[in-house]
């Protein structure tokens, strides 16, 4: 029998993977991928809570998160393309212009 705890454990594992990706990768494209993983992990959690409490609000919020992820990708990739044309690299370290 699969309970809510199973789904929340899976959400935790996927969220950890996403945060490891955000902290570990220096490739800006990989940073975007990791953000998608984070958003998807939360989506699973919302859908699971929605199922086990018989409430549809979780699914609605997942829906809005998907919409936000789509717009984030559009704007983020635009900025990334602009940055690549300006600097010729998608290394995260190239963003620290003040050498902090």
């Amino acid at each position: 029998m699969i309970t809510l705890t199973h789904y929340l454990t899976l959400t935790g594992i996927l969220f950890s993977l996403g945060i490891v990706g955000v902290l570990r990768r220096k490739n800006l494209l990989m940073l975007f991928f990791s953000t998608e993983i984070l958003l998807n992990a939360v989506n699973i959690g919302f859908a699971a809570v929605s199922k086990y409490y018989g409430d549809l609000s979780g699914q609605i919020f997942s829906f809005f998160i998907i919409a936000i992820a789509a717009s984030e990708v559009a704007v983020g990739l635009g900025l990334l393309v602009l940055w690549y044309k300006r600097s010729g690299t998608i290394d995260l370290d190239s963003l620290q212009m003040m050498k902090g």
Partner: protein
Amino acid sequence: MFEAIAFYTFSILVIGMFGIVVFSKNALYAMSALAGGMIFISGFFFLLDADFLGVVQIVVYTGAVMALYAFGMMFFDSTRDVKENIKFKKIIYTLSVLSAIFTIFILMAPIFSTKIEAIYPTLQGVGNVQMIGLILFTKYLVPFEVAAIMLLAAMIAGIILVKVKMEETPTNIEVARGEK
């Protein structure tokens, strides 16, 4: 029984796919693995009786977002690896796992401790898609419209950001050819 089999199969597949995304050196492999992981995540939504969400996951994520990434990767030299020198690996892993567990715990503790009453309970005999439509276009109509405006703004921003420099590129090529 079948639910358990499906859950564990999809869990292993999704964790494996996302593991490839996080730890792969090649951006192209990472993107393909991410697309596969998105499809497998929709399996969870179908398991959780969220049919509409599963379909939206496939259409929006694998259809639109991954296509956008594939399009964006044409601008970059994806075969060239970004040199990544990472220090303090152990600290990164410990911190990220701990912070993820704490985040989940903080968000989920109220749900576990108190018996939450459903604000919009699912009705008997009404399909998932119909129910989502009923709630989305009554209680959540204003957030829905705001999300639509946000998507429009994001579309305009994406077009303008990529377009500005695109106009200069053909002329540069022509100038370069003329000089030769």
